[in-house]
């Protein structure tokens, strides 16, 4: 039990510390990336990137959240990518 608690504490320190540290530390090169650029880079890392127009806007929201979990994307990345993908439907 003590071991488990130690692990949980280490995990919590890592997450909170990391979150606090990185909240203001994204390079301008990354911050200025467009949704199209993030789509090409992040989707293709594991699979062929689905084209804009493949799904409707509601489905892109769902799939974006799924990928946030499966591929460890940040919310900012997901929002930019889904906005880009939705643009073909508008």
């Amino acid at each position, binding site marked *: *039990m*003590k*071991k*488990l*608690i*130690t*692990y*949980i*504490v280490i*995990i*919590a*320190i*890592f*997450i*909170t510390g*990391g*979150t*606090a*540290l*990185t*909240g203001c*530390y*994204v*390079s301008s*090169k*990354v911050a200025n990336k467009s949704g199209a650029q993030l789509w090409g*880079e*992040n989707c*293709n*890392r*594991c*699979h*062929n*990137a*689905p*084209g804009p127009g*493949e*799904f409707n806007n*509601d*489905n892109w*929201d*769902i*799939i974006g*959240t*799924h990928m*946030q*979990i*499966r591929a*460890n*994307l*940040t*919310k*900012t*990345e997901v929002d930019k990518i889904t906005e880009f993908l939705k643009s073909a439907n508008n």
Partner: protein
Amino acid sequence: MRKLLPLIILLFLQILTYAQDASTATKTSPGSNKFVVYGNAEMSFMSNSDSKGFGEVNFKPIFLWRISPKLFVEAEAEIETGEGSVNLGLEYANMNYMVNQYLTLHAGRFLPKFGAYRGRLAEGFLNRFPSNPAGFGDGGIGASVETGFGALGALPFGSMKVLYDVYVVNGSHLLTDTANAGQFDYEAYIPNNKTMAVGGRIALVPFAKSNLEVGFSYQNKSGTGDLGTVNEKVSLSMQAVDLNYFENIKPIKSTLRITGEYRHQKVGDNAVYLKADGETQYSFANSPSAWYLSGSIRPSLVDSKFFRNLEIAYRYSNYQRPKDAPWGGSNLTSNEYALDYWLHWNSLLKIAYQVKDQEPSTFYASVVFGF
């Protein structure tokens, strides 16, 4: 324990404070509960000197609910025919709470990111081959599906990112039957003793263009045998290193993709098994490892639609098994060559030839439709 409790409470309050951050807070509006089903279907054919025929048919629907911008449920059912009958399984059912843009908490049955192959790159439309690398499929080693809770996310550091996953789960069960002594059930639905496993993965995406990911995974469980048995306190420690890289090479108008992974596990020396006579006890050094390296190239930038949908791939894999295990005895190597044709971004035809130790060389073909 008492000294640690205030610290734990403080840390989790800190996490929840981030959840209230104005930049990440999102209002829920009526009709925001959204649902979709997608997944893939797969069928394979194999031929070698021992057998020939159409084999496994798999149907894997994935159910996704976006209850609100912060609440999300994902579940996958798996319907397979590989063992001669229809098997229905719950691959995962995972509830997620998006705390902020860097942190997601989740609980349920989920695919732990232990390594990158199982649970991610093995997916039908990601794997360029109809088979698994030696030591990475059924009868292989390493965590597969787990039940418990965890946290995951990504932390940007300048132009690079650190991806993290940490979890507390029931963990693997030690098998002690004659044929499988020393192997593990990595997909158990319920716990077999009072011990839990702790694990996680840290991955680095070092380049701004996110085309390289290198991960390190670890999982430990101090007791893996059934409660009340002599093996109750047999430990299991597992590690994995994985690599995933892709690059568009403009001079040859092609996309190069390289993936690889090394897995190792160490089982406690206090494990005791029974021989087939049911009386004779024995033990053995149980420290298997497996690795693979795969490369593929696809002329994805050429004008011809036919050629840009072709992809060729090669994979080498090696499985080092315990010498004295009933399922061990010698190392296995496998060389696989594949020619794929992409019908859609998530649908393809695969043709492959596999040369593997102790098995006849095999021709495989499969079709995968993502939906």
